[in-house]
């Protein structure tokens, strides 16, 4: 009976062992399959996470690069870039110091802090424009002067647009000082040219009206010569960009023929005529020469000569026209065009004085021009035809 028990125990144990082995083998297949699946999932998820991290790193890098480009752009454009919140308070400013020399901290903060940098005459308008833009949500575009630390005011232009959705404002301030100054200079020049053109026409009108000769051919020649004298003065002025003209240069231009012929010599220090003095002086010299050529030391058949000298002291330019060796002269019976136009130009236009002396050796004409009065005499008027 003992061996029977052993047999049964062995049989049952063998059955259990085989069954356990079989179940483990079966389950093992499932486990291996599931393990492969899980490992694939882990690999996929880890790659995904890595890609996510990489994408995030790239996004951060792209943002940084964009930020650097934005900064470079601000620097290249010589502009200050700023942001403001929906209430118009400036929250960040870049490049403000480089542009204005002012502390950027002072520009941020309250709604109107940056407006303190705006120069007094423009501050009211700039403040109103900014308030209106913030209230209406419309783009801002204003030009104003900023008191620069280097002294003086600089023109700036501020533009800003509201960012949709956030209500934030993005703006720039650029330095337009050069452009504004050029514009102002151009306007000034345009006014000046206009003024001179009108002046010139008035002078030409006076020349035509005052020239008196019975013969039309002589009339045409006289008028033409006078207009040519004006033209030469005009040329000189335009060559000097409407600036000062050297007296020697003007005299050489007007009296070239006589100087080359050795009949006239110039003597005087360097002196710069202001633009307002050029035309009257040109007319005066032309008329003196014309008169001398007709009746005086430069007349045909006479061997006379002329000395033109000038001296300058603090208050006045003194110019002396001296004729020598001409035919005997006497004061004229009536004032010709030359006399009248010289008087009109020198006396009335420039506030100077003309003295004529008919000496035995020839005419001596002294012109005295006060200098102070003509330094600001740019806007001098044309001689009126009625003043003679």
């Amino acid at each position, binding site marked *: 009976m003992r061996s029977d028990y052993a047999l049964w125990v062995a049989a049952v144990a063998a059955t259990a062992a085989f069954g356990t082995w079989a*179940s483990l083998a079966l389950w093992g297949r499932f486990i291996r399959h599931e393990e492969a699946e899980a490992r694939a999932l882990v690999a996929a998820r880890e790659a995904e996470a890595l890609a996510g991290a990489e994408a995030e790193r790239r996004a951060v890098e792209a943002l940084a690069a964009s930020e650097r480009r934005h900064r470079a752009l601000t620097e290249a454009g010589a502009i200050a870039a700023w942001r403001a919140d929906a209430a118009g308070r400036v929250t960040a400013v870049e490049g403000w110091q480089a542009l204005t020399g002012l502390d950027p901290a002072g520009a941020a903060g309250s709604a109107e802090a940056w407006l303190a940098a705006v120069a007094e005459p423009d501050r009211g308008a700039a403040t109103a424009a900014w308030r209106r833009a913030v209230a209406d949500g419309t783009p801002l575009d204003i030009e104003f002067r900023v008191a620069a630390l280097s002294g003086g005011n600089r023109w700036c232009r501020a533009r800003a647009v509201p960012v949709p959705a956030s209500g934030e404002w993005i703006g720039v301030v650029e330095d337009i000082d050069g452009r504004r100054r050029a514009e102002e200079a151009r306007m000034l020049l345009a006014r000046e040219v206009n003024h001179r053109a009108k002046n010139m026409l008035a002078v030409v009108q006076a020349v035509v009206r005052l020239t008196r000769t019975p013969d039309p051919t002589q009339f045409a020649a006289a008028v033409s010569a006078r207009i040519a004298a004006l033209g030469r003065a005009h040329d000189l002025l335009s060559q000097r960009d409407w600036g000062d003209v050297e007296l020697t240069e003007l005299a050489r231009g007007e009296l070239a023929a006589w100087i080359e012929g050795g009949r006239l010599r110039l003597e005087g220090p360097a002196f710069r005529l202001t633009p307002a003095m050029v035309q009257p002086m040109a007319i005066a010299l032309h008329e003196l020469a014309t008169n001398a050529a007709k009746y005086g030391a430069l007349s045909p058949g006479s061997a006379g000569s002329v000395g033109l000298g000038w001296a300058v002291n603090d208050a006045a330019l003194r110019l002396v026209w001296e004729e020598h060796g001409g035919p005997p002269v006497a004061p004229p019976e009536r004032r010709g065009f030359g006399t009248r136009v010289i008087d009109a130009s020198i006396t009335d236009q420039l506030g100077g004085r003309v003295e004529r002396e008919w000496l035995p050796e020839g005419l001596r004409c002294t012109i005295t021009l006060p200098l102070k009065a003509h330094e600001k005499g740019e806007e001098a008027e044309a001689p009126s035809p009625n003043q003679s």
Partner: protein
Amino acid sequence: MLNGISTLTYDIAQAWGGYAPHAICLLYDPAILAVEVVTNLGIALAYFLIPFALWRFLRGVDTLPFRSVLVMFVIFIFACGASHLTHILTLFIGGWAYWADAAVRTLTLIASLGTAIGLIRHGPRIAGITGRLLAAAR
């Protein structure tokens, strides 16, 4: 050998209906029978409910990794429950009930041992992979 096989066959044939119900050994004592019946029924009920709950859980989470672990638990716990039922049968029915009980217990043994050895063998690997899976999902 032949003698052994014939004796075995005879014993099985004779013993098939030959055993007395187990309650006789317990002298039909109501107290011990009550304890046997109530506790084994209760354990069986619990051991059927647990696999049912696990099965429902498996159907609810179809992305669960290593589902076969839970499937093994379903099988072995269900077998345990069944063995408690067959034990009650042997109390009142003799003969074939003992063979049914033996068969169910053998299956329970196989399922339990298989689960135990499998867990010991695969457990650490499963834990490692599941850990990485959860970390990567975060």
